[in-house]
């Protein structure tokens, strides 16, 4: 009975995925040309300016110095800015992967290693993004467990990276490009 239920669920999922993919492919506008400069990462460069606002010590200091309502307002504003920054990072990631997939699609040869690495980086970005969003949105009490989880994801990413390198030991070509700025 449970096996039958599992198969039925699987069939329903298959049909739903099929309909979803069909809809996505029919209405896809991603193949439209977007200028290259719009696909380059733009938001991550503001990170150094934002870094101090992430320090827990700052918050502790302000909590002790400011009246409660002002501290709450400061925290809400900080949260808004960080969320905006996260949305910017997400846009950077989307544009970069869009460019990478376009190049892969139009290349006469692609490397299995780079493609799986790209896929893995996107998956880990999604995971980290959700965690970071929670970290920014939730109270300090829950931050520690989120950070631990993030560390685990980070370690896992490093391990996958090492496996990929071991599987295909190819020298990486390094040339100057608009990315390195």
């Amino acid at each position: 009975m449970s096996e039958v239920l599992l198969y039925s669920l699987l069939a329903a999922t298959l049909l739903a995925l099929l309909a979803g993919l069909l809809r996505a492919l029919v209405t896809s506008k991603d193949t439209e040309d977007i200028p290259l400069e719009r696909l380059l990462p733009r938001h991550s460069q503001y990170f150094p300016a934002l870094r101090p606002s992430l320090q827990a010590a700052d918050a502790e200091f302000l909590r002790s110095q400011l009246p409660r309502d002002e501290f709450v307002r400061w925290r809400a504003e900080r949260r808004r800015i960080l969320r905006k920054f996260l949305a910017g990072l997400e846009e950077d990631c989307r544009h970069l992967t869009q460019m990478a997939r376009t190049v892969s699609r139009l290349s006469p040869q692609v490397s299995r290693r780079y493609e799986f690495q790209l896929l893995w980086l996107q998956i880990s970005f999604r995971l980290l993004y959700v965690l970071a969003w929670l970290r920014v949105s939730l109270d300090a009490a829950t931050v520690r467990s989120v950070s631990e989880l993030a560390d685990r994801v980070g370690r896992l990413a490093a391990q996958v990276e090492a496996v990929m390198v071991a599987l295909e030991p190819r020298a990486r070509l390094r040339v100057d490009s608009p990315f390195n700025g």
Partner: protein
Amino acid sequence: MDLRPLDYGFWAAGTILELLCVIWIWRRGLHRQLPWFATYLGLVLTADLAAWWLWHQVGYTDPKTFYIHWVFEALLLVARALVIAELCRDTLAAYAGIWKLSRLLLLAAATALVSFALGTAWGAREAWPAFIYSAQHGLEMATAGILLLLLAVCRYYRVPVRPVTLWVAFGLGFYAGVQTALLAALQIWGNASIPTFSLIRSASYLMALGTWLTAAIRARAEQVSGPVLLPVGLYEQTAPQVNEQLQKLNARLLEILRG
């Protein structure tokens, strides 16, 4: 075994739609673009007409009917596999790089799914009907799985898919998905549910045929030129740098998380 008027209605509707599909495929010249799909539809039409003739002239219990039915089933199975391979080639072959990569992926998935289906069926080999159901179930799921993977690859790489190819894939996948659900449900409700499930199956097949017919009617005879590929070497320059940038983005997120 007598057929109900509704069964005759589905049979006749299916045969008429198959005939219309074959006619429109020829009229639009789609048999040149998707030759195995055209062959498959021709074979389905022949099988239906043969079944009709056998049923009424030779008899349902005659061994000849049994053997011809299973020969057609085997041929249709092979033809369907070839149609799926054709859809994959038609969609991705123009993109040499990702075609090489996804061909491997699709072949591996197909091997795994078909092996699983046959393995499960082999476990039920003591009882002939159970073996057939099991194999059919697994193969339908494999069909839906491979088509899903193909569409997912197209979506991931933003490969433009011709509407007719898309709708042919959807029709096949939809029918396979419904079959998977029905064969699973049949195990719960038993043989008493066969007439009802048979009607649902026929209705879903008519829907798939309707999808193919609409796609064939709407298809335009077009000579689609292949994409202009980038020079060799550009990928080798770009891919590591994009991945490096993504690593940096991940590092930023980790930094935010660690506070």
